[in-house]
Structures are given as C-alpha cells and as structure tokens.
C-alpha cells in the first residue's frame, strides 16, 4: 500500500511542474508557430519579480511612495507578489513581442528613417525563432546576473508539511500546485472556448489567411497571445519562487520539461498539456521513485522520444483519432 501512496504523492508535484512549465510555451507555439527558447528565462523573470516584490523592491522604485506589498495583510502578501510577477513578465513578453517577434518597433523606426521595413515577423519561422529567442535567453540570464548577482534571498514555503505513509512527508505546497495546474488548464479552456480572444486565437491557429480575410486582427491576436504565454510563464516562476533557489540560470530546469511536454502534447493546448503532464509526470514519478531522479529524468526523455516518433502529432491527436473513429462508427 505504501509504495502506491508514495508514487501518487510523487506524481502530483511532477505533474504540476510539467503542466505549469509547458502551458505558456504551448500557447505561443500552438497559436503563433514560434518556438520561444527563452521560455525558461521568462519563468525566471516571474520568479525574480515575485521575490523582489515580496522583499520590498516595489517600494524602492522611483515615484512609488510606499511599498504596496508591504502594506497588505501578511497572508495576502505572497499572492500579491506573485501577481506582480505575472504582470511584470507579461509586460516583458509584450516588449519582446513588439521588438523581436513581430518586428513592429524596429520596422516602425526603419520606415521613418530608411523608408522600408527591416525585420520579417517570426510567425511560423520555427527555426529562426529558435535562434532569436536563444539569443534573448543568453542576454537575459547574463543581464539578471549582472544586475542582481548570483542569487537572491528566497521566499519561505507556505503551508507546511503533509505527512503520509511510513513517516514520509512532503511540502503541502507542492501538492497544492498540482491543483493550481489543473485550475490553470481549466481556465485556459474557458478562455479558448468562451471568450472573444479565444475564438480569434483558435481561428488563427486553424487558418491564418482565412481568419484575416474574415476580419480577425491577427496582429493583435498574436500580441495578446504572446503576452498571455509570457504571463503564464511568469505565473510558473511566481509559483515556484518559494520552492527554488533564485538564481539567474533557474530557467533551464523548466525549459526541457516544457519543451518536451509541448511536443508530446500536440496541437491542442489544453488537452495536449494535460495528457503530456499526466504521462510524463507519471513516468518521472515511477522511475524516480525506484531509481532516483536521474533515472526519472532519462525515462521521461526517452518516453518523449518514443512519442515523437510513434505519435508524431502528439497525444492530443490520439484523442482526435478516437473521436473521429467514434464519428465514423456512428
């Protein structure tokens, strides 16, 4: 009985990490055809912004008379700091989108100086977007290191410990994150299905040309999408800030999982990320439980390779196929 419980308890944090790491990347990749190799660094920005805000940095900004986080009641301080983290990252994402991804700002400048645009947008330029965002990631890591040193003072883990099995325990917070991950997916689903933005985004994924001719402002949709994806990355960083050492290179620990999950998940952001989180999270937990974290990581990657090879459209395409099979039969 105990091993099973142990596995289950290990599964939740594993699932949470993968899902939370992947959603931001999945949205940007799925809707815009852009691969953001700086995704890990966006998560890092979220973590840094959260930690700095929690430790009073907002109050140190010019024109800000008093630290807004500090005046809040204790229990709300961390969520407020996290919200700050999300907003900062979303804003940062917007800046990146305007300058690098769509090239709008450089082109605006170029139009007025040499009379023609100089930058082609990165949409659907998978390989070029990889190279460009890799450059951004290098810059970000080093800039943060130069500005804030090698590490920041962290935030304590809320909620205490959860005991289970034979005297084992785990931070309750880690289990809570699994719930948060599921909630995020649910919210995304609602956004995609119920909101105006969601419809535009889905139309653009399906057929950009068609969407444009139907009057969808694809540029605005892309901008919103990148901001959303960045915000989600920021959320991940914010949520994991209490659990990790805040160092400039911390993004690397998320990027691989995110990447792999997006590919394993496939085209559908919500269903794909859910299934990928489930499968990969389970594989990791299973092997890490018995043979340690290295084995868990290796097997996670090996399973990813197998999925890429044998289900190239990702797990969400399997769901599609099953649904189609039902449709055929009925």
């Amino acid at each position: 009985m105990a091993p099973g419980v142990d596995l289950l308890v290990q599964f939740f944090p594993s699932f949470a990490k993968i899902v939370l790491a992947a959603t931001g990347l999945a949205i940007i990749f799925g809707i815009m055809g852009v691969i953001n190799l700086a995704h890990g660094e966006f998560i890092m920005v979220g973590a840094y912004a959260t930690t700095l805000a929690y430790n009073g940095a907002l109050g140190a900004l010019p024109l800000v008379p008093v630290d807004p986080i500090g005046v809040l009641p204790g229990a709300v301080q961390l969520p407020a700091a996290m919200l700050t983290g999300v907003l900062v990252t979303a804003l940062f994402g917007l800046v990146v989108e305007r300058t690098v991804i769509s090239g709008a700002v450089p082109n605006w400048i170029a139009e007025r100086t040499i009379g023609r645009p100089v930058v082609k947008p990165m949409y659907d330029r998978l390989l070029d977007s990889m190279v460009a965002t890799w450059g951004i990631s290098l810059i970000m890591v080093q800039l943060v290191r130069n500005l804030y040193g090698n590490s920041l003072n962290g935030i304590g883990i809320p909620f205490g410990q959860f005991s289970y099995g034979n005297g084992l325990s785990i931070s309750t917070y880690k289990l809570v994150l699994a719930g948060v991950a599921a909630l995020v997916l649910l919210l995304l689903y609602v956004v995609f299905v119920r909101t105006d933005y969601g419809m535009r985004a889905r139309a653009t994924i399906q057929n950009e040309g068609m969407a444009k001719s139907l009057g969808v402002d694809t540029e605005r949709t892309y901008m919103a999408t990148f901001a959303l994806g960045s915000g989600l990355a920021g959320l991940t960083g914010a949520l994991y800030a209490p659990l990790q050492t805040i160092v400039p290179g911390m993004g690397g620990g998320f990027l691989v999982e995110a990447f792999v999950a997006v590919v394993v998940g496939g085209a559908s952001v919500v269903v794909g990320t859910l299934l990928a989180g489930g499968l990969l999270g389970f594989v990791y937990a299973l092997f890490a439980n018995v043979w340690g974290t290295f084995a868990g990581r290796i097997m996670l990657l090996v399973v990813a390779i197998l999925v890429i090879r044998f289900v190239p459209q990702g797990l969400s395409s399997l769901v599609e196929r099953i649904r189609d099979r039902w449709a055929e039969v009925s």
Partner: protein
Amino acid sequence: MSDTADGMDPAVKQTSAELATGVDTDTILKTEGITKRFGGLTAIDDVDFDVEAGELRCLIGPNGAGKSTLLNLITGALSPSEGEVYFRGHDITEMDPHERIRRGLSIKFQVPSVYEDLTVRENVRLPIQRLASGAERDERMADALAAAGLSAKADVAASALSHGEQQQLEIGMAASLDPDLLLLDEPVAGLSVDERAEIAERITQLNEERSIAFVVIEHDTDFVAEIADHVTVLHQGETFREGSIEEIETDPEVQRIYLGGETDA
C-alpha cells in the same frame, strides 16, 4: 477478362505480371476501390479510375470533389485508407513516391513548385541529372529549356519568372523525366488566354509525339474541350460521370452538381 497478345499495339510494353493480374495491358493506371478518409471526412470514396496508355484524360468536378486528393493517392503522397493502385500492371500501393516516379509516373503540383531560389537552368537540371550525364545531359537540358520557351532566361532565378513561365517550367521538369503518365494539377490556373493556348499545345504535343498519357485537372471547359480524349467527373469523392467532353458538357446532372443542387445519381 484479359486481353491476349494478338492484336495488341506492339508499342505497349507487356509483362507476364500484367497478364497474370488480368489487367488490360492497355491500361497504364488503374485504381481499385481506392478510398481516403481524413478522420470523419471521406475525401475519396471507392473510386475505380482507369487510364489507357497514351490517353489524355481530364479530371473535372466542383471544388472539394477530391481531384487533388486522387492525384496524391496515385503519386503516393497520401496513403489510401482502402484500395489499391496499379501502374503498368504492378501494384504500387505500398511504394514510396520516388519509386513510383522511377517507374514512369510524374506530376506537376497544383501550387507552383519550382525551386524559387535556383536558376531556371538548375531547376531543369534536377530531373535530368539522374537520367543522363555528359553530352546527353546537356542536350536534354537544352531541349527542355527550349520546349518551355525559357532558353533565354536560363540563368534567371525561377522566382523572377511570370506565373505562366513557371507553369511551363514545371511542366517541362515533369516531362523531362520521360514519364509514361503525367499528372497535371491545374496547369492553366491564373493564366491568360494566350498562355492557356500555349500550354494546351504543349500538352497535346507531348501526348502525340511522346505517347505520354495525361491526367489533367482543370476547371476551364474550353481548355478541357481542346485537349481531352475523355473526361471523368468527380463529385464528393466519387466518380460521377465518364465520357467524352460533348457528353459531359450536355449532361444536365453534371450541370446540377456544379450549381450545387441535389442530384439523383
């Protein structure tokens, strides 16, 4: 029912395999019950499509009828959900596209697919370099350029050609493989009347002088009337009618499917 060797056109190649499968040796292409499903959508439904050696067949039908899909099934770009494809009597259903091409099939895509960043000469070289070398290669390249009317533009980037010239180039590339069957997907879309006449002449010439069989997808009925021996009408993934252009043109059911009404067929 199989044909015997007597009374056959000696120019048509014949193998024991062909006799064994009972396939009419005049038939260069044959699909049997070919079906293609994309999830819940059946794009091609149980189609038996035969083409004779040297025949010039046009494939017409309303948009979405599945014409391009059928060509893709023939070339192997798509795998069928059910059914087989036979080429010159051999079952090619499991073969990779390049194997089919090497057996005498060739295709010009619907969307112009010349190599935009390569020169015209480099474009023309690609199909030919596999089949000939040295002086023969140079000669064949020169012929291909001339036949496409592009000798003067040989060192220009293919992206700089007009749409009509690109079509000519691509047809030329497909033809220079010396195929037995050439599939053309909308060769005259977007071309002027004069350009269409040029292409029609080219196709007829290739058909008559080199005995290349053709399957041409087109919408322009005048164009079809000018070149076609026979016409197949495809509708909602099924073969709807077959016959001469006169028969098809005057068939009220065919007119109805183009206008979008329901038919009894």
